[in-house]
């Protein structure tokens, strides 16, 4: 079986319409970003009690997707598993698009985005003890490495690809572990503070990245009307099952340690307070239980629809895992002094997603979608399988 990569020739009107819609949404998002920059962050749902809002949730979600996607691509280019070759190019391209979206997400959250360059003045103007500054190195390097990686893949230099692939895989793991460390090293916030956070983030990245990759690959093949082999996807489904179970174990350990210690109010509040639905239904149900059920049940695990639903629910569940980390992590009032803090200083912080924030987040997603479908159109990403006899699909 030989794979030939060709640009997808989207000729239909629907493609153009989709392109225009995505471009419009991105421009609307950008306009609202400029507005929030001029007006100040009071147009967002954040407050002094909950300083990080939806843009940080989306940023860490996207970084996870990107790192996971890049790590999955190393299955082919580093470990030499030829059967996954059909998804690997797309995985690397997807990783670049997603990390770009994540960087845009960070700049949306900054109060003064024009000073973002200060984040990248390593060792000169930066405080290198800060996890944010260290992550600046990781994100910047990640961008460069993944571009070289994609370049060597396009040039079809197998030796170089393997070398850069090893570096990219390790770097991607570090990127998301560093992102976990941003939260896990903060002792003042009990829901964040956990040594297991970097590893939990890594597993979540691989699970969500693989989930998104399955969704994207299946839909790209479907909309490009190209045949594809199903078996590699089903074995990726098994991998997804493994990641999801590991993630579930990590999250359980994290929550149980917090429940075991005497100061357990914040975690109890997360599990039983106003975030109950988001936690139990969306994070646990949608993120862990449904995919584990679908991917292990013999009737659904070998069907494309079962795999797609499982991947969707993993991606959505991990989005809510991020949400349930960032927002409740800061919303619970801090115990300044033992006892009940009266009045406004003892209230839990509230966060409501505002319309502007929603449009800005939609803007990020549509911008990434735009780049992705343009990439499919103009880059050689999607393989075309020569021997049609071997494929069963379509």
């Amino acid at each position, binding site marked *: 079986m030989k794979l030939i990569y060709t640009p997808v020739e989207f000729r239909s009107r629907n493609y153009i319409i989709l392109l225009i819609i995505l471009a419009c949404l991105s421009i609307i998002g950008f306009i609202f970003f400029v507005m929030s920059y001029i007006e100040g*962050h009071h147009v967002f749902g954040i407050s*002094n009690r909950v300083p990080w809002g939806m843009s940080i949730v989306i940023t860490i979600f996207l970084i996870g997707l990107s790192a996971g996607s890049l790590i999955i691509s190393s299955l082919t280019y580093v470990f030499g598993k030829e059967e996954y070759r059909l998804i690997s190019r797309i995985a690397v391209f997807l990783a670049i698009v997603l990390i770009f979206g994540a960087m845009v997400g960070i700049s949306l959250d900054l109060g003064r985005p024009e*000073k973002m360059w200060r984040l990248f003045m390593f060792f000169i103007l930066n405080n290198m003890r800060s996890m944010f500054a260290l992550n600046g190195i990781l994100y910047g390097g990640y961008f460069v490495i993944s571009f070289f990686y994609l370049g060597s893949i396009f040039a079809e230099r197998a030796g170089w690809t393997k070398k850069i692939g090893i570096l990219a895989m390790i770097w991607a793991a570090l990127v998301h572990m560093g992102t976990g460390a941003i939260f896990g090293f903060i002792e*003042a916030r009990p829901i964040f503070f956990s040594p297991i956070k970097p590893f939990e983030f890594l597993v979540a990245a691989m699970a969500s990245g693989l989930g998104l990759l399955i969704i994207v690959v299946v839909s790209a093949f479907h909309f490009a009307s190209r045949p594809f082999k199903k078996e590699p996807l089903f074995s990726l489904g098994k991998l997804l099952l493994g990641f999801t179970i590991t993630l579930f174990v990590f999250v359980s350990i994290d929550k149980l340690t917090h429940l075991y210690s005497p100061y357990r109010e914040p975690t109890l509040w997360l599990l039983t307070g106003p975030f109950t639905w988001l936690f139990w239904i969306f994070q646990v149900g949608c993120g862990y239980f449904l995919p584990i059920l679908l991917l292990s049940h013999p009737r659904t695990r070998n069907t494309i629809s079962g795999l797609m639903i499982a991947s969707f629910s993993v991606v959505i569940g991990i989005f809510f895992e991020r949400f349930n980390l960032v927002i409740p992590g800061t919303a619970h009032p801090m115990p300044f002094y033992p006892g009940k803090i009266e009045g406004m200083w003892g209230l839990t912080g509230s966060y409501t997603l505002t319309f502007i924030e929603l449009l800005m987040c939609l803007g990020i997603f549509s911008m990434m979608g735009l780049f992705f479908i343009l990439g499919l159109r103009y880059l050689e990403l999607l393989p075309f399988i020569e021997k049609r006899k071997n494929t069963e699909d379509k």
Partner: protein
Amino acid sequence: MTRWAMVIDLDKCTGCQACTIACKVENNIPHGSPEEQRKQRDIYWNKVIAVTNGKYPHIQTFLIPMPCMHCEKPPCVTVCPVKATYRRKDGIIMQDFRKCIGCKYCMVACPYGARNFNNKEQEIKPYHRQDPPPEREVRGKWPFPRRTHGVVEKCTFCFHRIDQGIKDGKKIGVEVMPACVEACPSEARTFGDLDDPKSDVCRLLSSRVWFRLREELETQAKVYYLTK
């Protein structure tokens, strides 16, 4: 070396909030609207919390004024990626608005909730001071060029008063003190140098029982509380 510290006598504090008001006036902090209050977006460099323990009739209420604790090991300085928040040689933790990029990481890391995000451009009325006192010619280099939205702000122990007092050769803590200390009607607050054994701060700390907030985090706060 000087290490500025504050001692707050909880036995004397009546919770009148004069310190909060004095701080707002001195540092030109905007008064929040009821809507901002509801959304928890109003800026307080100094707050007074009330903590109750027990149930009626066996109830005890502590009124605890909380400025920035100016920790010896400040978590906010550790996490700031751009060195916008830093520790001065005299132990005051400062925030440089020119460097601050508004990432809010320090607000997440601060265990005392002392930090506030400036969410919007403040309206300027004729009776608003646009810059904190004293005047620019007198105070020299000032880390706050202008109150601007998109940065994090916090209590500075009224460092401009201290610096000016040292320049004028006045006794800090006796003649010159932060606005909240000056405004306290019951003289619950004392300001002074921890490294000077003759200061009022050291005298109080050696003669009374004191505690610091959230000592389990080892931040070594420099705001001490004398017990009731």
